[in-house]
């Protein structure tokens, strides 16, 4: 999945969500918490786009969703990375690293 510049944000969210789920299955709230804690104030990400990303990834077959019980015994929708999702994550990760390296190569004084 090649990155188009316009999709930068979307693609960024996807890779963040995938990376988060790589730790194991979790419900949507947990995913948003986890990303929020990691990024802090650096990226002001609202929860809505993250949910959209989760469902979009489900549609793409990168994650599956299943109803289960949360830590405090409430019905919650749990997302789990599929093998396809894991592969996708790997591809996106390396693409991001190449991107970052390229940008740094320009920014670093020669």
């Amino acid at each position, binding site marked *: 999945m090649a990155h188009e510049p316009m999709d930068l944000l979307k693609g960024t969210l996807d890779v963040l969500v995938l990376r988060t789920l790589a730790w194991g299955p979790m*419900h*949507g*709230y947990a995913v*948003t918490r986890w990303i929020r804690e990691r990024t802090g104030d650096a990226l002001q990400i*609202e*929860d*809505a*786009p993250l*949910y*959209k990303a989760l*469902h*979009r990834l*489900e*549609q793409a077959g990168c994650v599956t969703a299943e*109803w289960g019980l*949360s830590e405090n015994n*409430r*019905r*919650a*929708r749990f997302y789990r990375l599929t093998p396809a999702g894991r592969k996708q994550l790997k591809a996106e990760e390396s693409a991001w690293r190449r991107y970052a390296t390229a940008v740094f190569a320009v920014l670093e004084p020669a």
Partner: protein
Amino acid sequence: MTRHVFQFPWRSRIDIRRDVDEELRFHLESREQELMAGGSSAEAARTLALREFGDVDDARACLQHIDDTIETTRRRRDYMNDLIQDLKYSVRALRATPTFTIVAVLTLALGIGANTAVFSVVHGVLQQPLPFPHPEQLVKIWSVNPTAGMLKGQVSPIDLDDWRAQRSRMADMGGWYFTDGGTGMDVTGLGEPQRVSTAFVMPGFFSTLQATPLVGRLPREDEMVRGGPDKVVVLSYGYWQRNFGGADSIVGKTLTLNGGPFRVLGVMRRDFAFPSPRTEMFVPYSTFPDRAVPHIRPVRTADVVARMKPGTTIDQVRAELAVITKNLAAQYPDDAAWTGATVVPLHEAMTGSVQTALLVLLAAVTFVLLMACVNVASLQLARATAREREIAIRVSIGATAGRIIRQLITESLVLALAGGIAGCAVALVGTRTLIALSAGQLPRVEEIHVDVVVMLFVLGVSLVSGLVFGLAPALRASSVDIQGMLRASSRSSTSTGGRLRNALVIAQLAFAVVLAVGAGLMTRSFRELLNVDPGFKPDHLLAVNFSINTTRHGDTAWQNYYNNVIQRVRLVPGVVAAGAAQYAPFRGMGERNPFVPVSYEVKAGEEVPAFPTQRISDGYFATIGTRVLSGREFLPADRAGTPTVVIVNEAYARKFFPGQDPVGKQLRSFDAVPITIVGMVGNIRQSDVSVPSEPLVYVNNMQNGRVKVTLVSRTRDNPLTMANSIRDAIWSVDRDQPITSIFTFDDIMNETLAKPRLMTVLFGAFGTIGLVLGAIGIYGVLAFLVTQRRREIGLRIALGATERGVMMLVVRRALSLAASGVTIGIVIALVLSRFVGALLYGVTPTDPSTYLAVIAALAAVAGLASFIPARRAAGVSPLVAMRQE
């Protein structure tokens, strides 16, 4: 892959909405609780959670949309997966029972193929409208002579002119003079002299049919009357293509026909195959020279077609013609006996002769289809019953009824598809075979195409029957008591199935009887035909057809030319004998002339009876191998100038001189001069092998000649190898003598027998298919019966029943089924038999020996079919039977 095992329930739109709501609510409430746990007030927590989340409504709508899409895709994929799974399973299941599959597919193929082929032919010949505008308005008209019992007589062209002038109910009418292989013109000046099949057309011919030319124009009325500029010709599309390469420039050119110049006016369209597809030219009838066919009322040569005015009924036309003909009969003595007219729709007139045969064929093939459907149905039924356990197992491990039914439907469809594809092949080959077999037997062959609609229809019928019968037991199976099934004591649940199966087999046997009776009758009739004594010896005969041009050879001298040609051919090495007749045997009766004993008294109002007259040469009977029963045949000494003598056939002698020798008796004809009978010969079948000879009079062609000649040579070796030398012998007398045709009598015999042979072959095939399907039906039921009653059989054996006794148990069952089927079948056959009467020769439709043979055949088939199951029953071990408990 996992989905095949764990079928997630599909989510409805409402489910999705609820799920999304719940997921969002869970998120917001979890966040609020977390914030409140951190010390926020409820109010502040809610506000913050909402702000962190963003646009909740937009997110909700968006998530719902994505989930809807996911669900739709999933459903589609599940459906495809199930379908593929069903297909795979079907193919596996069908391959697991190869006998069933092969028999079912073959049955379907035969049913579909045979039906499509026959329906295509029938549709092409009988149902396609004639290729003329408003064909329903066209009628064919014949003259009627009630005293002579002639209901479909040719029409006098002079009468036709009068009809045409006096008509008011008919928009137009016209006539033509054409006989296939008979009427023609000699074309010279275009390479080898050619005899070209010609229709001599009368005013109104083209305009009645509303035919239009492809190139050029058609003759005007004034170009079709005696004395007008009538030396014109219109070419058929085929003749134009073959001889002039389809060049438009032919219009206006002049052709030499019968030695005179004729101007080409135009070319007909390709689909104009009237009066016959073999008509190559259209020439005005008015050009026919008087000395060939006198232009007088008693010469009745014309076929007539008329177009009714719109809104006019055929009865009104009949009424009008009745009046016109009655008036003409009163007005002209020549017409006195011709007091009426027969009017028949043109389509019926063109197809009438084959209609019965085709409709009978259609009925027979419908029986084949019925049998095929019943066969597939009973096969499905037996199979489904046998699979009740398998289905029960599938139900017990969670398959739903719907899923199983879908699987069975898929299986039926796969089967039908295979049968359909095979059936298409059978249909293509069958249609082609039918057309080839019926060469020259069917009118309008050019209209025949494999009918896709028919094929789809037949496929649909067999498919539906397969589905219905495959599904009925499936429905039952999927709802029965699973426990009972698994205990393998499923006997109780199949009693209704058993009865249905019996009924199907009985129906099948009844159909088989009907088909076998048809096949038997056709075969007997055909054998009778083969045994007919045609009155001559057809082997080693070669016939050459030609017409003598009196313009070239002189009005009287042509008879010498005729004689010279015969003499010359007799000298050809390898020719044993040669003679000539106007019409060869099987090729037509010849014109009718009044020939009666001098003592014959004509009653008031009666016309002198007329009999077919053949013009022959000396030595003709010796050549074709007909016995001279009394007196002699013509000699070279009988020629112009000597007293006219005639020869009569046995039928004539029996009619007028019963019990006496006709030789020496005297006849009279048009004038009072007595004519002596010098010989009597055996009857020769002139018109058709199936038509007994009429009384017939032979006239010496040297005394009273006709220019149409069929020169017959008896050859020592294969007659076909002699064709060239005989033709060269004729050309050695006149290099420009056009030859119309050359044929052997073996060919003619084959041709005459083609239609009965076709019917025999087809009915034989249908009858065989019927018996085979019947045997399969019986076998299926019995095999099933034995399997079902193993325990009972085992018990009987354990109690001391003999092997023979057990086998008889099965055979008796077969025979009782056969008896019911045969009884019903015979009744149906007897009811239907009167329809085939017209197709039979020398055998009655209720011929007892045929029926008895069919009964015997059915009994034998039933016995054979029960043999294997009976052996299997006898082999049942009492121990195995006990163990099943």
